């Protein structure tokens, strides 16, 4: 590689990028919009459900249950009636996500038998949401039962503590269970997603823009012109990759600033580690862009192929859904998915403060993948075809 030639080429590349309004727009605005819209859109957070009530008991106990549920803010009242017909309609018309049915003799059963059933009917199309709401309901029902029990049983074996849980009177075996959640204490889904979105950002800049850049020269005929000159392959590739690497890093910095100050994502770990990993990752991403440029004839094709590939990689990367929920064979594929490794690394370092040793496995995988991808792409890129 000749450094002097590289210098001339780099100057040309930077000039061209800075003069192309569309590309500049994509470098500056696309990441920002991605962050602001995506971070808010890609969430599975379940906040509340609209609840239709069929109360056949009309007792103070049943009313208490309903009040507790709606009072928690998680269950929004969507109407009530005595018949299931209207409740069904409400669910089918999507006015209600769930139906609560309190049978007759609810209070009587509670007093007499110390237990009584209620029916929770969910629109379970979104199974995960139904599950989350079920656990909220369970907790509220349990505290409602506890308080009821404490009231009707004046000399209890257990007494009610201030947070609604039962504190056993000494003399009976009991477990004092304390629950704690580490990382993401506010349970803000965005904090979980933003590190991953940063990866998406950087990947699009690296892969898509590299592919489009080279294909644009192909379309204009200037690529032929360059191939006829004595520039050697590695100089040419370096000249194409270095500017985009620079811009991708700049975008990463911008993204991290937004993540910190707009979304409050903690930066517990070392930023140096992040940039180190990003550099390795970028080499792979740029390599894929280079490879795409050898198979696409037009910029549209380049865009099409890039988006299709990226979509598949993103879906299978554990960015949106947990890797361990995938079938085993799919979990194996994540080993060679660079996005999966980088996302896991970002999340560990930013949210958990992971050190280099903690993420060593991911770093090694990224190095291997990037080297392989770049190698394949460079081999495929020929100045002379045929």
């Amino acid at each position, binding site marked *: 590689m000749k450094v002097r030639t590289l210098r001339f080429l780099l100057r040309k590349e930077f000039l061209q990028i800075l003069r192309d309004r569309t590309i500049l727009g994509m470098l500056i605005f696309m990441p920002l919009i991605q962050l602001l819209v995506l971070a808010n859109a890609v969430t599975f957070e379940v906040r509340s459900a609209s609840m239709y009530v069929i109360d056949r008991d009309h007792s103070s106990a049943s009313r208490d249950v309903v009040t507790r549920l709606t009072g928690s803010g998680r269950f929004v009242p969507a109407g009530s009636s005595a018949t299931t017909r209207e409740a069904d309609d409400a669910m089918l018309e999507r006015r209600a996500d769930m139906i609560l049915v309190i049978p007759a003799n609810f209070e009587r059963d509670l007093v007499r038998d110390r237990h009584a059933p209620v029916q929770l009917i969910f629109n379970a199309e979104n199974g995960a949401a139904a599950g989350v709401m079920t656990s909220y309901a369970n907790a509220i029902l349990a505290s409602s039962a506890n308080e009821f029990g404490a009231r009707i049983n004046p000399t209890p074996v257990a007494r009610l503590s201030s947070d609604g849980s039962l504190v056993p009177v000494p003399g009976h075996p009991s477990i004092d269970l304390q629950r704690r959640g580490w990382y993401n204490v506010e349970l803000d889904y965005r904090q979980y997603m933003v590190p991953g979105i940063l990866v998406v950002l950087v990947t699009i800049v690296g892969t898509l823009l590299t592919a489009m850049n080279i294909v644009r020269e192909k379309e204009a005929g200037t690529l032929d012109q360059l191939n006829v000159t004595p520039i050697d392959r590695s100089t040419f590739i370096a000249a194409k990759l270095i500017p985009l690497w620079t811009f991708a890093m700049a975008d990463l910095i911008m993204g991290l600033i937004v993540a910190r100050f707009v979304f409050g994502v903690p930066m517990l770990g070392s930023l140096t580690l992040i940039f180190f990993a990003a550099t390795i990752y970028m080499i792979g991403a740029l390599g894929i862009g280079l490879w795409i440029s050898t198979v696409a004839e037009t910029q549209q094709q380049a865009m099409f192929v890039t988006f299709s590939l990226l979509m598949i990689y993103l879906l299978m990367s554990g960015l949106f859904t947990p890797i361990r929920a995938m079938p085993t064979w799919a979990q194996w594929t994540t080993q060679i998915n660079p996005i999966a490794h980088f996302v896991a690394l970002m999340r560990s370092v930013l949210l*958990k403060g992971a050190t280099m040793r903690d993420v060593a496995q991911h770093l090694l995988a990224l190095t291997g993948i990037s080297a392989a991808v770049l190698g394949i792409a460079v081999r495929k890129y020929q100045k002379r075809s045929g």
Partner: protein
Amino acid sequence: MESRRSALRAFVVKEMRHIMRDRQTLTILLLLPMVMVVLFGFALRDDINQVRVAVVDPAPDYATTALRSRFAGNPRFEIVGTARTIDGVESLFRRGGADLALVFSPGFARSLGDGTPARLLLIGDASNPNTGSAMTAYATAVIASYEAELGAVGRRVRIVPELRMRFNPTLESVNLFVPGLIALVLTLVTALMTAISLSREKERGTLEILLVSPLRPWQIILGKVVPYLLLAVANVVTALLAAWIVFHVPFRGSLTLLLVSSILYSLVGLSLGVLVAAVTSSQRAAMLAAVVGTMLPSTLLSGLIFPIASLPGWLRIVTFVVPARWFIVIARGIMLEGVGVRYLWRELAVLTVMLVVLLVAAVRRFKPRLA
């Protein structure tokens, strides 16, 4: 009139042949829906099958051992390590090696015997809030049942919820996604492809040639649009087949209604594609606009993957103008709920209005070129 009709027919035939010849794109367009259905179905799942537990037991005794064996014996849990102190747990969490940590306090069994509260700390990795709380809930249930067996806390009063999960009793996420996938596939084939194809003709100048031919403008648009419409319908069928064969996604409603709705949605997509081609100045811009303006909202803001209820208020309002959002409600209604026009007329009406608006806008935009 006679000559116009045969001209139109010849034109449609020519367009179809054109598409057939582009084998690369054609293969992608036919295969992609099936690939997407299978991929989404396998990849986008929420249910964690195995919770990895790390145990910190400084002074093991019969009670801690018993409780630990509850977890070990439960197929939902997997004990990934034990330690004497909590420090080892931290690095395990950071490496992503464990989801939960059970931290017993010394003298656990003694406390149980004394009747003083035996302390147990349950630490969950809450970086993913949903799975974090789910896994903690599972563990709490195991602990609670052990506690109950100890002949525990008096005769507690209990309210017992009986759960019924309608429309998706198995709670499989794939049932949620497949109806939405049809929308995505249709958007791809209609809006995206039309935008690209039309803008390519515009750039090459062949559109001008068409416009001075004896064909009326609406006939030109129709001719360009019919092949993609047929392709779209074919895609709906293949996507449904893939979903049914591979994942056994239910289909409880009327197939006719779904096809009719798909055609309606496809027409909306096609009008969008025409409009995008009309307002952009180059192929590159058209593709970018089509992806950002149609594909992305159809994926992210339609309720396909991410529930609309999860979105912040302002984004929820934005979703009202995303056609896919309405179609997904229709598709889910037909496939999972088995309902008909009676409950879906509102969504169908919205799509129809969108179609009219877009068509008018598209035709208006093309008029100046034709005059």
